[in-house]
């Protein structure tokens, strides 16, 4: 939701970044305020996923110029785990499997790191068990998932629900969903989107990265940005998604060519 005079959560100015010596982001600007849901759409290779990884602090991506302010502070100074503790959450497009670590141990370790950061006492097994039960409901997840290894043998939908469960636990200020809809059937999509909506408050914000309009039927964005060749070339409201769905991305490239 768009809230009058709300706090600026994220401010990105003229951001450039490269991976493996190849420049992917080429002057990206974006501002997200508390309460807002933003979507970034764009063709494959336009830099959407790179942007999400830069925000989360992936070591393979190097920022070569511009700035990112998160709640007024320079985000690029912070290690990935500090960003996570400060409220940046990235739901992975391809969540990793960690055989040998149970989901509950992983989630508890993650959550206790957050609590420590906030100066709170760590949760023991019993505290955590109470806490996790209500979070499981958000993504309609069976408690038996907790005793399984992290993502190992999970279906695509289960992995994505597990990502949203982690989001529910870490309660982020800025949630970045990287192609969370990819590989989901309609039921899983509804559950995942429902989870994200339940977690949305006037104090936090989301950045939804997607190739398709489908997800945006469930998570209604306040703004849609179209990314092409490493920068945002068009911003509109939710109706822009429908237009893109109908006309495809090539139409924009033509527009851009005419404008240039």
């Amino acid at each position: 939701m768009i809230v009058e005079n709300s706090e600026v959560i994220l401010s990105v100015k003229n951001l450039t970044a490269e991976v493996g010596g190849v420049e992917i982001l080429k002057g990206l600007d974006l501002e997200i305020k508390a309460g807002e849901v933003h979507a970034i759409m764009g063709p494959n290779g336009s830099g959407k996923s790179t942007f999400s990884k830069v925000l989360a602090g992936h070591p393979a991506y190097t920022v070569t110029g511009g700035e990112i302010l998160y709640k007024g502070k320079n985000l690029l100074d912070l290690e990935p785990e500090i960003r996570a503790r400060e409220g940046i959450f990235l739901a992975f497009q391809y969540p990793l499997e960690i055989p040998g670590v149970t989901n509950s141990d992983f989630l508890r370790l993650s959550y206790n790191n957050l609590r420590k950061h906030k100066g709170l006492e760590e949760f023991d097994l019993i505290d955590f068990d109470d806490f996790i039960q209500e979070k499981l409901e958000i993504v309609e997840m069976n408690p038996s998932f907790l005793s399984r290894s992290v993502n190992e043998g999970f279906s695509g939908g289960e992995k994505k629900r597990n990502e949203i469960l982690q989001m529910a636990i870490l309660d982020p200020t800025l949630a970045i969903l990287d192609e969370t809809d990819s590989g989901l059937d309609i039921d899983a999509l509804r559950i995942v989107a429902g989870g994200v909506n339940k977690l949305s408050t006037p104090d936090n914000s989301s950045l939804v990265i997607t190739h398709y309009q489908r997800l945006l039927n469930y998570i209604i964005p306040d703004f849609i940005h179209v990314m092409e060749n490493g920068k945002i070339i068009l911003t509109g409201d939710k109706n822009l998604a429908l237009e893109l769905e109908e006309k495809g991305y090539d139409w924009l490239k033509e527009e851009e060519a005419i404008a240039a």
Partner: protein
Amino acid sequence: MAIQVTEKFVSQIVDLRSAITNLTKDTSEFVSELRQIASDRLSTLSFPTTKDEEWKYTDVSSLKKLTFTAQSAISEDIEALIAKHSAPEASDNLIVFVNGQYSEQFSNITGAAPELVIGTLATLGDRILPKLRSHLAQHPDTNDYFASLNTACMEDVAIAIVPKNLVVEKPIQFLFVATPQLSAATLLTQPRCLVIAEAHSNLTFIQTFVGNDDQPYFSNTVTEVWLAEGAQVNHTEVQWQSDRAVHINTTAIAQARNSVYKNQSISLGAKISRQNSVVHQMAEQTETSLTGLAFIDGEQMADTHSVIAHNYPHGSSKQLHKCIADGRSHAIFNGKIQVSKLAQQTDSAQLSRNLLLSGKARVDTKPQLEIFADNVKCAHGATVSQLEAEEIFYLQSRAIDAESAVNLLTYAFATEAIAQIPILSVRRSLSDFVLEKTKA
């Protein structure tokens, strides 16, 4: 003559063996025969060197420079060692050997199932002699150099015989403890185990090898496991010797029709360890599962050589071997899968996964497939890696710092193998060890 040099090593060790006084007459004669056959064979074998393909990476020549003793006083920490390493689940079925000698004091088989034959060569006596004749030192893969050395010096043997159709509810544990003392001579122990699971019986057993780290010692073990038709055996081997020990262990398995053998072999200790595991599928439809973990550090070296011989149709095998090498340690895995011409419809999968935690650690891994049948499924794979940046980043993005992430992933890597062990207390103590090692 080339064997001159080895003779000195062998003769020194063979001279240490004592006359057989503890056994009944017929058993004593049989063991003397076995000793003689093995001694004769040794005179035709050469001490393994790095020029031998099977010993390419593992140099045990330092053994030849040592003077050995078969005796050592029992140190004060013995009770603590035994308490730490004996599994509560097996408290009724515990056989303990200290410095190569059976310890009545620390063993406890009073609560063992009455049908179960458990004890030692000396305590069981002639009543099992017919079984000994057909099984003890009869496995074809107990004929190599070090296994022969063990047989040539055979004195006592830890034995479990599970009669037909008996399901042994509680696990059995064979615990071998070394307490080397300061001495001009190095302690040598040659533990020996024999397990016979008769038709359709079911047994879980643990072998644990430990020692204190006061002084170096050399442990040379042989274990034979025989599974009759339809028998199911789970075998957990925990090698937790002191970092000053040289440990050589031969595990020879023979499986009859429809039998299921599962093994978890964990190597944590020893300066140099060598695990030889050989499984022979001797009839149709046998199932074998081998899980290995070597977790080493410092200057340690852990070498695992395994052979699974599929000799008959419809056999299956699954093997997962994991090595974690830190410091300047060196882990070796050589996994041979043999599929003979007869062994059609064999289904075999082998995976060797290795994790290097330091730039100076080294892993040599070699899957070795020898397939002579044409209608079989044999999958194999080997990976050597450092932890992936992507995995560490995933955990970091979940508020976990990089160092804890590395530790957690290392722990997880080890735990996958440990999780296969069906005995809770063993699983726990190994997990605790790994957790301790992977703590920041």
